[in-house]
């Protein structure tokens, strides 16, 4: 599963500050009777790059989806950028516009061109004039290396290109935190690398990132912390070196042996 990352990573901007970006305390969530997230406690500082791993159904996607309230938590507290997530819609929209998210299936808007996908939210949420929004969009499309596709529709692009557009679309909102929900799971192996490269560049600029992913190579190279989840709980977290070379819990050892074993 792991992709080799050839180039040297520039760590000069990858600094973790003391400022807290996300604080999750005693968070619980149920789907009906099913206790999907159990007593989650997690503090993310600005500049951290966290990879969340775990078997399917362990609640890792649900957890990061709680951070921008695509899922609602039932107990505990989530504070993002100093704003607590409650049912107050104003707060939710505020946090959502500060927190970018990339999905497994990209979720680009198929009826809009690539450029329109990128300018829509800045224009309608941030009220930025069209010209300026388009300039920003082109800047980020250049960054993800697809400026020449700007006037095509998402359906005409490859999966890897679509995911990079999705990243650019999130970046156009100038988010302070980026969430990635299995961004490479729906991609062909050839395309995984181009998406990971984009994510690495983002990390190099000091973006606060939470990534649910199975790309352990990426975790080793980029993350400053790896979290392992199972059965809705955080089972183990550590620096990547320690996590991979010296896992403490039996469950983690088993998971790593399965995911790295082939």
């Amino acid at each position, binding site marked *: 599963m792991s992709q080799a990352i050839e180039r040297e990573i520039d760590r000069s901007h990858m600094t973790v500050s003391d400022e807290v970006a996300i604080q999750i305390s005693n968070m619980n969530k149920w789907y009906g009777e099913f206790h999907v997230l159990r007593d989650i406690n997690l503090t993310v500082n600005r500049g951290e790059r966290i990879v969340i791993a775990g078997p399917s159904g362990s609640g890792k996607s649900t957890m990061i989806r709680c951070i921008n309230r695509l899922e609602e938590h039932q107990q505990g507290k989530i504070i993002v950028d100093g704003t607590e997530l409650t049912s107050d819609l104003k707060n939710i*929209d505020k946090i959502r516009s500060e927190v970018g998210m990339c999905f497994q299936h990209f*979720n680009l808007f198929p009826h809009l061109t690539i450029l329109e996908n990128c300018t*829509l*939210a800045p224009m*309608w949420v941030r009220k930025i004039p069209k010209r300026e929004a388009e300039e920003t969009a082109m800047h980020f499309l250049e960054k993800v290396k697809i400026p020449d596709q700007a006037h095509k529709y998402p359906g005409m692009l490859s999966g890897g290109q679509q995911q990079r557009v999705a990243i650019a*679309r999130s970046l156009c909102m100038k988010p302070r935190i980026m969430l990635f929900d299995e961004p490479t799971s729906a991609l062909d192996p050839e395309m995984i690398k181009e998406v990971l490269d984009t994510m690495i560049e983002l990390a190099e600029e000091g973006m606060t990132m939470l990534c649910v992913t199975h790309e352990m190579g990426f975790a080793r190279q980029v993350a400053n912390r790896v979290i392992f989840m199972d059965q809705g709980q955080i089972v183990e977290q550590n620096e990547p070196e320690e996590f991979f070379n010296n896992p403490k819990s039996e469950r983690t050892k088993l998971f790593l042996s399965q995911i790295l074993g082939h």
Partner: protein
Amino acid sequence: MSSQNTPLAYVRKEMLEQQPAPRGQVGVAKWMRENLFSGWFNTALTLVSIYVIYSLLKAVLPWAFGGVWTADSLQECRTILNDLHGNTHYACWAVINERWNQIVYGTFFPSSEYWRTHIAFVLLILAILPVLFDALPRKMLWITAVYPFLMVWLIWGGTIWGPVSVALGFVLAYMASQFAGRSLGSGLTGLIAVAVALIWWFFIGPSVTSGLNKVLPLLHLQEIQSRELGGFVICVIIGVSGIALSLPIGIVLALGRQSDLLIVKTICVGFIEFIRGVPLITLLFTASLLLNYFLPPGTEFDLTLRVIVMVTLFSSAYMAEVIRGGLAALPKGQYEAADALGLDYWKAQRLIIMPQALKISIPGIVNTFIGLFKDTTLVFFIGIFDMLAAAQAIRANSAWNGITWELYIFIGLIFWICCFAMSRYSQWLERKLRTDHR
């Protein structure tokens, strides 16, 4: 790496260029062989079908094209046919020529005022075009916005003040929403706007209008009662109003049905299920007979308006279900992506969800439109003089007693042209909006 001698190994030295398809696999010959003569059974079916089509055309074409176009009665028409062909097995299109006005404008519409319907019709085309084709200048949409009021004035007559007052209600509501929107939430703003409009329409507007009518009867046209409307004119009035109003109401109902708010959802589901469960003709009878019992005495509520309301409600219930189908077909990821970007509910609906859901629903929406347009003939049963009623009247007249085919073929053809145009437009629109390129 591996040697060429082992049977498993193979290395391509050069890539192949694209080759043209073999002859006989393209063009007319291929199509005919595949679709008409692919086996002895299909060949037999093809030959039988050709024979059936031939016999039909052989009977119909001389009847239609050998017909008479000018005559004052069926008697005269038959005489001419006998002189021409020696028999009367030919069409008498003359009835359409002679009774054209009755079919198009209805029996009671004063002939001196026909010009008003002509202007209204031309303006209708101008008002519809910018809605249908976005390549046209967007400023033309002003015609569309003004048209409903202009149409009411042109058809029903009176002074310009009545329609202006109704339009002013909308303007006041808009201004109130702009004013209140600065400090209040969107829900309360909407309520205030509706309240302002209602107060104007029911309390202030009527007295102002009647005052202006006395002092300054500007652009007064001869008043025409709803009972005097008829023919193709009433069909277009009801059909177009129903189509234009049922789509937005249907969208609101579909969204309401998916709402998390229990009361909104219950009202929408109840409305849709009730209206869909009742025949349109029942609603029309309610509109024409019963509604007056429920309204406070003395309120005059125009018959055509009542019919338009009922037809609109009826098709908006269907429309809501069609659009719900489109909403259900959208992947959940589209809602999530819109949410994750910080778009609020209405913006997400307007910019992301509805454009896609409506595109998916185009065939169903146009289906409902076509159904609505044809259902306008049902107003015949509540005493509105539409084209079918005109046909009935013409056949009851001694001059044309005995004529059937020609009249109903003509009326059917009018409906067919309108419906076929809608169908073709929707196909064009679907092709134009297709962006998935698969």
